[in-house]
């Protein structure tokens, strides 16, 4: 992973002191609420329903054991002993004291971490495939490009007061595990006809009030042009994006209003003037950054392991976990392990201080000291030897992180909802609990196969409900929580927006409604047809009829 040099360290250290002074001036009454709002947001600090919330950046989801232990320490010392992983692959703490935030940031800086640009109308954490660098289906490791974008976008003087927040995702595999098509900019490493690797560039995707799938602005961008092209897009957006209405301020609205062709014309005109400037990446710099992401020294004898097969045959629970919660690795004898943060009885994405330390220990002992966070709110130990999987599984199971539900209905993305968030209209955690109780039969879940269930407590869509195979959106109706259900969404390479099933359902009826939807699926499906494929083939009507049928 990328290791800070003196410059990187100085930036985070000076940023801590800058924020310490901003906090001091705010508490002394020298900074207005509005000004401090914009400044604290650019450092990840929100004021939530109960307390401030601090969002800590995990650049492209990559984190070391040392950093995980620091997060555990922060959870224990400054919070109530837990944190929450988000769809931006960051972690948030829900109970810090405002006056202690500068100290937390100083602690983070000690382990090369920060909260810079985890909120606010600026360029946010760039995200990527949690299996980057280790998945066999990859064209090229996207992480060096994420790091290059991280450096360019960090404290960028021109793009700190954009019309609205700005999110970039990079993928290196034709299989999209980063929801790249619903980002402000999606970058796909692709090969052109000449055999060169560069980027397909999408722009104007996003969720929120107006969900839109990103549009291709350029089929192929040479690698050295990455930053000049990004800067051109950002400059056009900064100048032309709407500022009169925050709900119409994202780049997707601008692209829709101008049309992708007119938008492209403006971007490329701007790009022409800056393309040959110092923004052009040098081979030396790309090589320097790539040097931090070289493959580990894998054990050549790992593939000769014979113990795994026996363990899979003799231990049914282990086999089930292996099938659901591990992912193939490009090196023979290794697997990537998904650490499930979707237990039966706790909120999706939550993790305790002890669990953070357990993952840190496992990473150190079995996975080269690194872990990743996923946009589905789980963690990944990317490089585990086959021979070590059993031990890793046992330890994860002991600490409630081995529920074999990855990719199933209960591997839900869930925003914190009304219980924590000041923006939310409805609760989500109680609904997730209801679903967990109603769908506790794992054999039934396995029979249903891969289903992405995403839930948001309001229209801002932090839970990505529009692109869930099943989406649940909490709405407030005269003081009561109701839930609108969509089906047929996808955040993968076949991205699509879900269609509304019908009128919203009462809080108590959500799990029962899901049961009916899934009954309809079981009735309708052909052999091997996934839920999403089935919805796409038969449409919404059979599901609607099942759910809203009048009882006879």
């Amino acid at each position: 992973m990328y290791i800070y040099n003196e410059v990187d360290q100085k930036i985070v250290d000076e940023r801590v002191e800058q924020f310490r002074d901003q906090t001091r001036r705010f508490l002394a009454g020298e900074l207005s609420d509005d000004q401090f709002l914009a400044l604290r947001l650019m450092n990840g600090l929100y004021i939530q329903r109960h307390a401030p919330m601090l969002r800590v950046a995990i650049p492209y989801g990559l984190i070391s054991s040392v950093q995980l232990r620091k997060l555990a320490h922060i959870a224990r010392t400054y919070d109530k002993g837990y944190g929450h992983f988000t769809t931006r692959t960051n972690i948030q703490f829900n109970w810090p004291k405002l006056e202690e935030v500068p100290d937390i940031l100083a602690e983070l800086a000690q382990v090369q971490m920060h909260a810079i640009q985890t909120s606010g109308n600026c360029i946010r954490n760039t995200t990527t495939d949690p299996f980057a660098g280790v998945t066999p289906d990859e064209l090229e490791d996207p992480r060096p490009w994420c790091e290059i974008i991280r450096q360019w976008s960090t404290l960028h003087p021109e793009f700190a007061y954009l019309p609205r927040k700005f999110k970039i995702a990079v993928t290196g595999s034709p299989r999209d595990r980063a929801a790249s098509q619903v980002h402000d900019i999606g970058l796909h490493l692709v090969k052109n006809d000449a055999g060169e690797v560069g980027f397909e560039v999408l722009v104007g995707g996003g969720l929120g009030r107006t969900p839109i799938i990103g549009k291709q602005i350029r089929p192929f961008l040479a690698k050295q042009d990455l930053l000049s092209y990004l800067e051109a897009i950002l400059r056009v957006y900064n100048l032309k994006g709407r500022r009169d209405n925050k709900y119409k301020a994202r780049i997707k609205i601008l692209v829709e209003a101008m049309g992708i062709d007119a938008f492209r014309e403006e971007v490329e005109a701007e790009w022409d003037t800056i393309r040959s400037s110092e923004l052009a990446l040098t081979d030396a710099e790309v090589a320097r950054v790539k040097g931090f992401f070289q493959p580990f020294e894998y054990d050549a004898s790992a593939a000769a392991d014979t113990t795994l097969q026996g363990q899979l045959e003799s231990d049914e629970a282990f086999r089930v976990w292996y099938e659901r919660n591990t992912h193939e690795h490009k090196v023979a004898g290794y697997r990537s392990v998904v650490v499930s943060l979707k237990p039966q009885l706790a909120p999706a994405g939550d993790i305790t201080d002890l669990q953070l330390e357990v993952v840190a220990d496992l990473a150190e002992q079995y996975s080269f000291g690194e872990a990743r966070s996923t946009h589905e709110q789980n963690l990944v130990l990317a490089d585990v030897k086959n021979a070590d999987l059993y031990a890793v599984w046992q330890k994860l199971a002991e600490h409630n992180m081995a529920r074999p539900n990855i990719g199933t209905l209960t591997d839900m993305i869930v925003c914190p909802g009304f219980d924590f968030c000041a923006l939310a209209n409805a609760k989500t955690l109680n609904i997730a609990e209801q679903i967990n109780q109603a769908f506790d039969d794992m054999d039934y879940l396995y029979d249903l196969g891969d289903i992405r269930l995403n839930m948001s407590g309001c229209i801002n869509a932090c839970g990505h409900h529009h692109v869930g195979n099943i989406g649940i959106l909490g709405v407030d109706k005269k003081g009561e929580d109701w839930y609108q259900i969509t089906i047929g969404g996808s955040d993968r390479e076949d991205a699509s927006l879900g269609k509304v099933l019908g009128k919203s359902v009462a809080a108590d009826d959500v799990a029962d409604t899901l049961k009916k939807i899934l009954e309809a699926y079981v009735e309708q499906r052909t052999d091997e047809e996934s839920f999403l494929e089935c919805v796409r083939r038969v449409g919404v009507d059979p599901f609607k009829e099942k759910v809203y049928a009048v009882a006879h």
Partner: protein
Amino acid sequence: MPLLIDRQIVNENGWLLVEEAETLPQSADLLLPLALYLECGETLKGHKGRIAVKVNGDDDLTPVLESKDLFAMIAIEFPAFRDGRGFSLARILRRAGYKGELRAVGSPARDQLGYMERCGFNAFEFADEEFSDDFLKAFGEISVRYQGSSDDPRPVYLQN
């Protein structure tokens, strides 16, 4: 109005802001909103004082870029704390080779000064009640940076 130029407090603001064509004085140093400047056109020829224009994010910069060498000062308006269009306007002007004074007016805030300077501003005008000497400290808070900008086009990796 307190004014900083090149990180120094300056007491004399020699510019006369004129908002209507009828009141155009013959010899003063004039600061004209871009629309008024374009409206005046010929009548400014032979004007004895210096000319500056004031632009904002709604303006088309093309006529300013075309005549940039005529202006001793260009003022860029920041109508609200969160309106960041002026940062891009400044970069475009500097990129085009504008060498004169680039002044942030409206409501530049202390915590934006570092970024503004990096984008090419060298002057900042504040409301009386907003300014304090402490603002001078704002420029040095972050002493290193990754990306190039108007201050130095080179990213950090090309600097050594």
